[in-house]
């Protein structure tokens, strides 16, 4: 490989990491508290939930799908989990209920997409409304308080490491492993990259898409448990706008909305970029309405960048421009 190619690869591989480092430098100059252990640990805890959702989102976007229902399903799963805990006092049971509920919702998503050929955008938008409605119906819009030991999932720690961060690491490694080292991962990349070619190569499209949604369901369920535990309550209205944060993180992390491209590592970095930006804006007391505008602008820019590099690729496909895209996962 030529040196210039290597440089291109390195830039593509680490470019997004450089952005994060740059953000860290700017942030520490803006606010001396930024680099404190306390603040950094705080950022990690804050981003843990959206990062876990973003891992699911990455797996889905890679295979040409997406999930808009994860915020609402997170609320439904977390709420039922809290409720079961209050009834039985069993942490294990509560944990399993959250996962089962979220997986069921995502199996429905998957069925809509695979069996009934609904576009994932519409299918999960419908699920978003249904899951939110179900959560509100269950408690008649009321919050559940006094959740006792349930807080261990989101506020506890093991060997001094906060539990949300442990979940984040485990799920991140799991995502990396699935994408990089399994048949499922390869199949998902192929499906998202060119579904018709994947069919013609003997890849079972529906089975793999279903698996992607089920994995996403597990992640959403766990995120639901952490969320309710962190806010000390069962909130049927919780998790609103999380689908947006998760999508933003995934795309800023280099996942291509056209499918076939994306990594677990990139997703973590993307999520931390989003989290750090939020943190900086909060520490600098930026007006919260303005923050919303900035967040919207960021995702628009990320998608524009993605489309731009995609166009470069189309040209390279025709042999006009030599672009060596980073293909490592």
């Amino acid at each position: 490989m030529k040196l210039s190619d290597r440089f291109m690869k390195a830039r593509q591989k680490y470019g997004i990491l450089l952005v994060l480092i740059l953000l860290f430098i700017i942030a520490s100059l803006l606010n001396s508290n930024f680099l404190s252990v306390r603040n950094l640990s705080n950022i990690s805890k804050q981003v843990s939930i959206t990062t876990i959702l973003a891992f699911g989102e990455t797996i889905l976007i890679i295979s040409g799908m997406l999930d808009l229902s994860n915020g609402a399903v997170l609320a439904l799963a977390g709420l039922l989990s809290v409720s079961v805990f209050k009834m039985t006092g069993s942490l294990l049971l509560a944990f399993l209920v959250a996962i089962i509920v979220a997986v069921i919702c995502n199996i429905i998503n998957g069925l809509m997409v695979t069996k009934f050929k609904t576009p994932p955008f519409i299918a999960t938008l419908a699920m978003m409304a249904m899951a939110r409605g179900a959560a509100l119906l269950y408690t008649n819009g009321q919050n559940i308080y006094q959740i006792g030991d349930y807080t261990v999932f989101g506020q506890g720690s093991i060997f001094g490491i906060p539990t949300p961060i442990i979940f984040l690491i485990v799920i991140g490694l799991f995502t990396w492993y699935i994408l990089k080292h399994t048949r499922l991962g390869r199949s998902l990349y192929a499906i998202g990259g060119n579904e018709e070619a994947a069919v013609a190569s003997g890849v079972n499209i529906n089975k793999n898409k279903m698996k992607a949604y089920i994995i996403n369901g597990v992640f959403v369920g766990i995120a639901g448990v952490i969320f309710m535990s962190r806010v000390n309550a069962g909130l049927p209205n919780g998790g609103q706008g999380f689908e947006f944060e998760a999508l933003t993180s995934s795309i800023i992390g280099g996942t291509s909305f056209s499918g076939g491209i994306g990594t677990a590592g990139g997703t973590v970095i993307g999520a931390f970029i989003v989290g750090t930006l939020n943190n900086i804006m909060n520490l600098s007391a930026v007006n919260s309405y303005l923050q919303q505008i900035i967040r919207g602008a960021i995702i628009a820019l990320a998608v524009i960048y993605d489309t731009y590099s995609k166009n470069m690729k189309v040209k390279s496909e025709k042999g006009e421009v030599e672009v060596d895209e980073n293909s490592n996962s």
Partner: protein
Amino acid sequence: MAKDIKLRIENINKSFPGVKALDDINFSVKKGSVHVLCGENGAGKSTLMKIINGIYNQDSGNIYVDNELVDINSPVEAQKHGISMIFQELNFVPEMTVEENFVAGRWPTNKLGKVDWKESREIAKKLLEEEELHYSLDTKLKNLSISDIQLLEITKAVSYDSDIIIMDEPTSAISEKEIEVLFEKINSLRERGKSIIYISHKMDEIFQIADQITVLRDGKVVATENAENLTEDKVVSLMVGRELSKTFPKEDVEIGKKIFEVNNLNRKGVLKDINFDVHRGEIVGFAGLVGAGRTEVMRALFGLDRFDTGEIKIRGTKAEITNTSDSINNGLVMLSEDRRRYGIVPVRSVKENITISKLEEFIYGGRLHSKEEREVVTNMSDKLNIKTPSIETNVSSLSGGNQQKVILAKWLVNNPDVLLLDEPTRGIDVGAKYEIYKLMVDLAKDGKGIVMVSSELPELIGMCDRIYVMSEGTITGELSRDEFSQEAIMKYAIGSN
């Protein structure tokens, strides 16, 4: 400078990051002539044409139209200088009508900006009459064939008063008969004093229409000659830079047992009573006009399309095929005519594309064994001579021929018994074609059964042991090697039962 020079290209250079695409290009096109530009993929033909058409800017060098220096920065500016380009992959809106297509982008409008449909109809009607085309103005483009649309595009180019018309491999997707119509059109354009730059790989057609031929290799002009001073062999060797011993490396291979048999394959309205067989070591051709149903047969057999009735036997036993994994597991694979759509996953690496259909081979306890995978891919890549910087390179950055080899490699990893190859050499350069022919012969020697669908008769005649001819969804003829001739094939291809 001679007066009859319409377009002159002088010392054009163009570099892309990492490659010098064009190196000091010089040539000129005469008025009322067809100038063929040929060269392997990657030789720089498309880049050069895109510079002339204003899609790219040259790094240095000049373009003269009618001996006047011109500066072209976009296709619209190119049009102002009388240059139009008909692209290899036609871009059109399927829902547009013939009329709308003609006036798109230059709608006659009234003062308020409302489109004057009455006038636009007049314009379109006049154009069709002038060019002697007989389409209804209200026909939607999606209901026309590729060759019809090509003729419309050419008509459109003429209507823009273009004196220079660039055609990029216009025959790659149309049938022999349609090619004749196209050539008549080109001849009439030439008589009217238009200059045509015609890009092609196909030797027989190049010599049918060329007045001058310019051969490009590795971004340089290696020859510009009058067509009568060149021969096919000479052009091919100029293109590849070496003499090819034979165009078709066909060898006599011992024909073995029957390995693949299709009985009474039917699909209502598409396929009727398809019966054929393939033996070990045999290359069986499928000829026919575009739309005769050859691709449909292959797709049905491979499990991509359903069929109503029919029996498929592989190695003498009946095979139930309902989807592609059934056929792959039965040792039956298909290379699609549409490489981009059904062949490659462009954004993924050569490695991933090659192993996608056989991943279970590399999995131990749920984990991909990447070292073994790399070994297999590297071996396959060496065997098929895939030219790629690394096996981690994205398939999209390879040339067409190498992409085709990647797809073949994917199937060879499965070690199939029967290979259905639908237009295996379409759109790839001469050197890669030869390598694919060679590979087919090697596979036949290994006792595999090969089906080759092709619209290029010389290729079928040169490579096959037997040829079936299809017309209107059914097999109308079967020819053995000693009966092969273009005339015999065409007779069956046109006349249906």
